[in-house]
């Protein structure tokens, strides 16, 4: 148990001796050890630095969470004085060289620096990727050691909680969140303060604060980064929420596939309890709040609030009808609030800096920032946080570094399997909740997948629908059977069996599922189809009427042809064809028998003369 004065002393000490610290010749080496970094090989890099620096009092090696640039992992930052140097795509050998030349020799190893648009950047902070971001939810990610509460405290950690407990009433807290304009970052964008106020007015012997850390959209990893990089931010915010609504127990529902996040959360909870920042009599007051972790077993539907609570109760994770809403009867029939990780990650900063600070960022109805996981056909795959209202073009072209291989932007998918595609005609849309809804997509939790001209939009719709078919809980009829029938229609179309009436049926069934399903999963499941139909109807028509996939993706619709002018009769294609579909004499042009061809494209890959084309 620490007093507030002791915590302030810790803060001063870390700031003086760890963060600002190093005089010239004193080094901090920070290795990005989030799941992404570890998967890319950061552990051997970390070990190499640890080993090299053992016994060197002038070099401290530490770990940090996700820095945000996936394709450059493992990433290492070397800090000397106020100067940061970022090394990318590291391995143990490179680590040894950096230690020798930079830390011992004082010379930056320019070979391992990050190159953006042909310009070598000394540090991450010099990149366009980083400069255009505004980091609130991710403010500590990549900066602090997530397993060290002192470093969180040094970055104003738990100051908001102290303020809430000592200076603010529950109504004050709710009002600040309400005034800030913060909206839920998990999907639908419901005003967070409003949600809290509903639960706050309920009279009940027990209330709960829950966190949805069951991030399940394909390609989304915003919440994981916060959990792995800044777990105390979540604990502090949930405790604040507990004070705001009058709850004494919180639960973090985190997917079991996030073991690093779970480990760091457990460490954080233990440390917070040791310091008296969680548990009984927080900061010596009579306010008590505890947090438990519940592991999700990997069901997407458990991101739906009622399903999540049902799962925490130990039952099969299925949604239940609303009303009653969770704020009235949620977990264990008690008033409950549920927010996602990113939403909570904003709370302490709003308390410290004020509602107007937060609401000064963003657009009229969408305040603050939003974290996006950039993926797909984009140069800078990674995690970015930008002010609401940033255009899609800025995110893709500038922060994301554009599309590889000079290909053209075709669409961006936001909102995951519940969202939709934003076509090139809306490339300049200012990203916020309402604008995305207006053009047939949604914010969702923040997955942003970029597609170029090589992506078939019917195939994309099929991909997302395959996901929802698989993830439907099976409780209500429209979602359980309807999504399956939708998928079968898409299969029919992409396999060349489509009929003109299929588009009408797709639309009718999609509308039915939206209108009739029990929960948000089903109600939004047809969105990928509806939005691709809205913007790329011609592609559907080409599949059905011309039996062609304009992007040459749908295998059953491809025709491979050998250009007799270019074919030299080397026989390589015929020898490699698994279906024995190619014939021809040596040194004579070869021919593909389309009845036998299975469209595997092995011939095309094997042709050294570019004689084979697909259409």
């Amino acid at each position, binding site marked *: 148990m620490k007093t507030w004065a002791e915590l302030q002393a810790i803060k001063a000490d870390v700031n003086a001796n760890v963060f600002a610290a190093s005089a010239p010749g004193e080094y901090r080496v920070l290795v990005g050890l989030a799941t992404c970094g570890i998967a890319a090989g950061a552990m051997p890099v970390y070990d190499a630095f640890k080993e090299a620096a053992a016994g060197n009092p002038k070099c401290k090696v530490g770990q940090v969470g996700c820095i945000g640039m996936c394709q450059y992992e493992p990433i290492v930052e070397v800090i000397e004085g106020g100067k940061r140097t970022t090394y990318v795509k590291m391995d143990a050998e490179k680590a040894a060289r950096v230690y020798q030349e930079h830390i011992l020799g004082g010379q930056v190893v320019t070979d391992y620096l990050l190159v953006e648009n042909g310009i070598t950047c000394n540090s991450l902070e010099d990149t366009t990727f980083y400069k255009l971001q505004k980091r609130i939810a991710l403010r500590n990610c990549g900066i602090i050691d997530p397993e060290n509460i002192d470093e969180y405290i040094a970055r104003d950690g738990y100051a908001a909680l102290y303020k809430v407990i000592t200076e603010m009433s529950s109504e004050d807290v709710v009002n600040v969140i309400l005034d800030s304009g913060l909206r839920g970052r998990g999907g639908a964008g419901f005003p967070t303060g409003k949600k809290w106020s509903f639960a706050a007015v309920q009279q009940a012997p027990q209330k709960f604060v829950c966190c949805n850390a069951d991030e399940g959209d394909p390609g989304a990893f915003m919440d994981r980064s916060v959990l792995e990089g800044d777990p105390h931010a979540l604990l502090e915010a949930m405790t604040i929420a507990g004070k705001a609504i009058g709850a004494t127990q919180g639960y973090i529902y985190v997917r079991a596939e996030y073991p690093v996040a779970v480990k760091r959360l457990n460490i954080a909870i233990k440390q917070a309890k040791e310091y008296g920042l969680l548990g009984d009599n927080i900061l010596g007051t009579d306010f008590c709040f505890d947090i438990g972790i519940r592991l999700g077993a990997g*069901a997407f*539907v458990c991101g739906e609030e009622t399903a999540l609570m049902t799962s925490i109760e130990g039952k*099969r994770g*299925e949604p*239940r*009808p609303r*009303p009653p809403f969770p704020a009235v009867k949620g977990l264990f029939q008690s008033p409950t609030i549920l927010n996602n990780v990113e939403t909570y990650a904003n709370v302490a900063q709003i308390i410290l800096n004020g509602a107007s600070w937060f609401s000064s960022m963003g657009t009229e109805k969408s305040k603050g920032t939003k974290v996006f996981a950039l993926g797909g056909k984009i140069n800078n795959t990674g995690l970015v946080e930008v002010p609401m209202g940033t255009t899609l073009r800025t995110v893709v072209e500038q922060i994301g570094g554009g599309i590889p291989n000079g290909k053209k932007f075709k669409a961006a998918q936001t909102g995951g399997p519940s969202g939709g595609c934003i076509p090139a005609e809306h490339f300049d849309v200012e990203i916020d909740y309402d604008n995305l809804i207006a053009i047939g997509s949604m914010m969702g939790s923040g997955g942003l997948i970029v597609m170029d001209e090589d992506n078939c939009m019917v195939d994309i719709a099929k991909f997302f629908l395959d996901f929802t*078919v*698989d*993830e*439907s*809980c*099976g*409780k*209500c*009829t*429209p979602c*359980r*059977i*309807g*999504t*399956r*029938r939708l998928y*079968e229609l898409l299969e029919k179309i992409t396999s060349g069996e489509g009929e003109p009436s299929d588009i009408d049926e797709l639309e*009718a*069934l999609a509308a*039915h599922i*939206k*209108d*009739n*399903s*029990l929960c948000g999963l089903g*109600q939004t499941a047809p969105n990928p189809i509806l939005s691709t139909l809205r913007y790329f109807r011609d592609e559907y028509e080409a599949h059905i009427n011309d039996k062609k996939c304009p992007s040459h993706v749908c295998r059953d619709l491809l025709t491979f042809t050998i250009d007799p002018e270019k074919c030299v009769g080397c026989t390589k294609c015929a020898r490699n064809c698994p279906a024995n579909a190619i014939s021809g004499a040596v040194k004579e042009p070869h021919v593909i028998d389309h009845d036998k061809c299975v469209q595997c494209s092995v011939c095309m890959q094997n042709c050294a003369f570019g004689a084979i084309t697909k259409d």
Partner: protein
Amino acid sequence: MDMINCTINGTPVSVPAGTTILEAARTIGIEIPTLCYMKGRNEIGACRICVVEVTGARTLVAACVMPVSEGMEIKTRSDRVLKARKRTLELIMSNHNCECLACDRSENCELQTLARNFGVDFDTYKGEKTEVELDESSPALVRDDSKCILCRRCVAACRSQTGVIGANNRGFDTTIGCAFEMKLADVACVNCGQCIEACPVGALVEKDQIAEIFEAINDPSKVVVVQTAPAVRAAIAEGFGKPIGTMGKGKMVAALRRLGFDKVFDTNFSADLTILEEGTELITRVKNGGKLPLITSCSPGWIKYCETYFPDFLDNLSTCKSPQQMFGATLKSWWAKKNNIDPKNIVSVSIMPCTAKKFEVGREEMSVDGFADVDYALTTRELVKMIKRAGLQWDNLPDEEFDSPLGEGTGAAVIFGTTGGVMEAALRTAVDVLSGQDNAEVDYKEVRGMDGIKEASYTVGSLTLNVAVASGLENAKKVLEAVRNGEKNYHFIEIMCCPGGCINGGGQPIQPNWVRDTVDVRGLRAGVLYQEDLDLPERKSHKNSAVMDIVYKEFFGEPNSHTAHKYLHTHYVDRSSTVK
């Protein structure tokens, strides 16, 4: 109470706060169609057949779970609503085994009714069907998931009993079954058949043994004798479209004769016999400090439940066989000898309101000298099918009487078919025996009615008897736990597996859910039995002359005698390893 005003199709409706749209619509004579809904039991909003349009709502809403709110404008038959229901039905049909012609539930299928009412097109959706396996492992039930529409009504019904079924897998692969895909025979299913009663379609049926019965009847070397349980007469007429609460005894007896049974007897005979045996057992235990409370043993579902979940109560169970088994044992011993028939040529058949009886007849303990007491236990529904198969016209059948002497029963016996009946019958006899008088008062109204748990205390001379009656296994569990932890002290407990007792057994004619929600099915059926109790000349088991003057005198001697024990009593098996 706060009243809420709303409109349904323009008609103003005022209902108490918290009323659902579905219930509000019922108040003005509109029955919104449902498949998954069971009032108070399964309110999950899953099937989406009950969707209605609410002005201002983003989507259609499920009427079964959406409470009305002030000023709400509801449309239950708009174009949007009717098309949505039809399409949802077509989706269900696309994953349903539509072999409706010969389906057990044809003409009594809630899905079929809706399909017809909405004019569904079977060809709208064609596609893959969910892979399922037929579960025929149980001696009592057959589960055919190819017909299951995942309404979860069986799950809800089972949850109040043993809770051995639930959803497996997810999405399109979801099926209802036992955990880890185990078979019904391998789990703690007590064969009560409440799941069958809850099923809107033909996914759950009893194990049909009609063919075997007709085969026996048509075999001249066999003497085929049938007994019918009291609750059967209270419901069988429903199987022929008659109103709930119609007495069917006379026509049933006539039908059984015309089906070719050699003798048509009444389980009421052995219900009276049970009272003599069990009443004596009770008095002996009370007087001699034996194990108390004594708990009834008529209900085979309850017995299996006790053996599985409360093995520490096995010594509390009456050692009496159930009336069905006592009847069979008497038939193949005293009656066979008396009529000079080799018991091996007797086919002993029972018509029961129960599916668990199919399990009971197969229990090892239920035979004497190598002869099974009862060879086949059929449900009320199976008898209805037999009558239809034989072309017997219910309306044209005369009223006939049971054969003698095993067709004789008292009013005490007939109320065995409803919760509290065994208790009341036992009290009528016990009070007379203990007081040594022929008491005029025979109505023990404290133990009547459809409450799940009933308690009463009766003083007879110097003795005070504390009794309890429970029906439905969730109620049985509550009573036993209260006894186990010393909260309650009873002398005698009646427990019936099915809620309301045998009149609501798992073998009874099936009423669609909207009827069960709006009509007191159990009360009406029980009323039939209480009326017969009033109408019969004798209302106390010890006044049954066939029992007292013939069977005891000629064969068993006296209650709880050595011979009685050999034929009429049994023992139990600890089955708790199934659930450990």
